[in-house]
């Protein structure tokens, strides 16, 4: 573990430089320990904590505290953090229309793996993926790990516009873009479910530790689902299989 400077309002507790299950577990433990400490009034001046795959960034207000004050406390929490019960999230089954207009990179990705597009789809739906972290955009969930043959580096030239709802893969990860944005991931399909809405109790549909399974649907079924979501006959919660 090492502590990295991020200016005068944040620092990052880094457990690994790559993807690493032990590091991810350590992040979850430290996150829980910090939340507990803050709940009883400790760590005054900390204003936010942002976990990632391999590190956790502590944000603080330099008018209320200092790095010199906080760092020893965070180090102690990191060492002392008990392995929390494995956090359990919700399980989701999300419909995806693969290929076609919404998945312009499916064929190329399949070819690179020596597969037919339908085989690539089978691999993407075969195993559930877990939500590792949210970031990049509101409600953007980094999920993994996807099947090895589907792993490709990001596009050399990112697209300036990736449509909202695009289902994408890059390296070992998969995600659904909740908003239109620039993006360098391979687009393989489209999902009609909204992922972020500030009128929900929890603004983001997915949370870390959730498990997601993708389900291929026909264009007809996609259109039906999209319009049922639009009209309110379906709610995003209907795609949740089990509560935690």
């Amino acid at each position: 573990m090492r502590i990295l400077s991020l200016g005068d309002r944040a620092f990052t507790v880094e457990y690994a430089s790559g993807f690493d299950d032990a590091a991810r577990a350590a992040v979850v433990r430290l996150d829980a320990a910090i939340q507990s400490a803050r709940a009883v009034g400790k760590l005054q001046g900390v204003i936010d904590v942002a976990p990632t795959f391999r590190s956790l960034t502590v944000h603080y207000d330099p008018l209320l505290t200092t790095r010199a004050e906080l760092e020893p406390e965070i180090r102690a929490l990191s060492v002392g953090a008990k392995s929390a019960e494995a956090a359990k999230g919700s399980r989701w089954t999300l419909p995806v229309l693969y290929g076609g207009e919404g998945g312009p990179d499916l064929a190329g990705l399949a070819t690179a793996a020596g597969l037919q597009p339908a085989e690539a789809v089978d691999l993407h739906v075969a195993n559930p993926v877990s939500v590792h972290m949210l970031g990049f955009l509101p409600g953007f969930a980094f999920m993994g790990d996807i099947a090895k043959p589907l792993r490709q580096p990001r596009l050399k030239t990112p697209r300036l516009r990736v449509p909202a709802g695009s289902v994408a893969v890059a390296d070992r990860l998969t995600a659904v873009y909740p908003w239109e944005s620039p993006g360098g991931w391979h687009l393989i399909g489209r999902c009609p479910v909204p992922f972020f809405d500030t009128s929900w109790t929890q603004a983001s549909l997915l949370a870390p530790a959730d498990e997601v399974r993708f389900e291929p649907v026909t264009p007809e079924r996609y259109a039906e689902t999209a319009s049922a979501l639009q009209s309110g006959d379906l709610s995003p919660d209907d795609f949740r299989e089990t509560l935690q």
Partner: protein
Amino acid sequence: MTSGAILRIRDPGPATTVQDFGRHQMRRLGVPVAGTLAPDWLYLVNALVGNAPDLAGLEFRMVGPRFTIDADVLRLAVGGPVSLRIDGPDGRREVPPWTASLAYLGETVAIGRVQTGTTALLAVSGGIDTPPVLDARATYARAALGGHHGRLLQVGDAVPVGSQIDAPLLALAKPPDDLGGPIRLVAGPQDDHFEPTAFSDLCGQEFCVSNSVDRMGMRLEGPVLRHLDPSRAEIVSDGIVPGAVQVPGNGQPIVLLADGQTVGGYPKIATVISADLPRLARRAPGDRIRFMRVDVAEAETAARRMRDDLHRAISTARPVGPDGGLDLRRLYEDNLISGVVDSYNPDPAK
């Protein structure tokens, strides 16, 4: 107290948004801070119209908006190198920046071109009163969050204003100095990803603000900052903050600004300190920048000193008459002045 003023936007300018200090507690949902690029100026200009520091104002880029007022009277001020003109049936008034003034029903308020840099602010008494979203009014347009319907202002928008605050109109004794010296930064988090010469080049050479500048980030042009291993110009994403200096494979730094994402996959050689970030964020394409390294403790001291400087500027602000002229009667009412300062800073610990 009067209430319910509305700004009717006749010409929004190229990029005008509702902004406050942003969302600082939603990163785990992937929500960027957003908020004004000029928090120091929002703090000051709010004080001039009697507002608490964190009320929302309008932030505009290059040129300010033109609007009419649905209210008997509205207290307002601009912060930044920009002019404010009020046209009404009784003629035209020019109000200098950093000076509170009154505009009346039926008058048209026109804010001019930002003279240096890119960004300036309008504060209205009572603050812009669009509905808070995730605890802030800041606009984050990419996800249509906050502000006025989550977007830049458009012609015809009716922008709501909070209840007018009955406080003396103030003017700053002198405009804040926006040039002052190099931009200070702290090394890391990934300074070890670069050749040793990269950091000395970052701090020893001059950089130029490119044309790619928006609320998300500012691309700089200058000496190439070389990665130790050019084949590893990306990292597994970790947390980033506004001010982070990320360097993609081409070696040209991008400084993340208010709308910058919460995580990123480019190594970050350094982070601009919070006291200097507003000064950098306001720079225009073609401006030349020099960086200087400080340590974390110096950066924290600079943040506290900046807050003290803002308090001092406000405590030496002078009362002015309704049209921006000096109000001698109020100038001699010392109690009134100190009263303003106390209500402005209710918590002396801050």
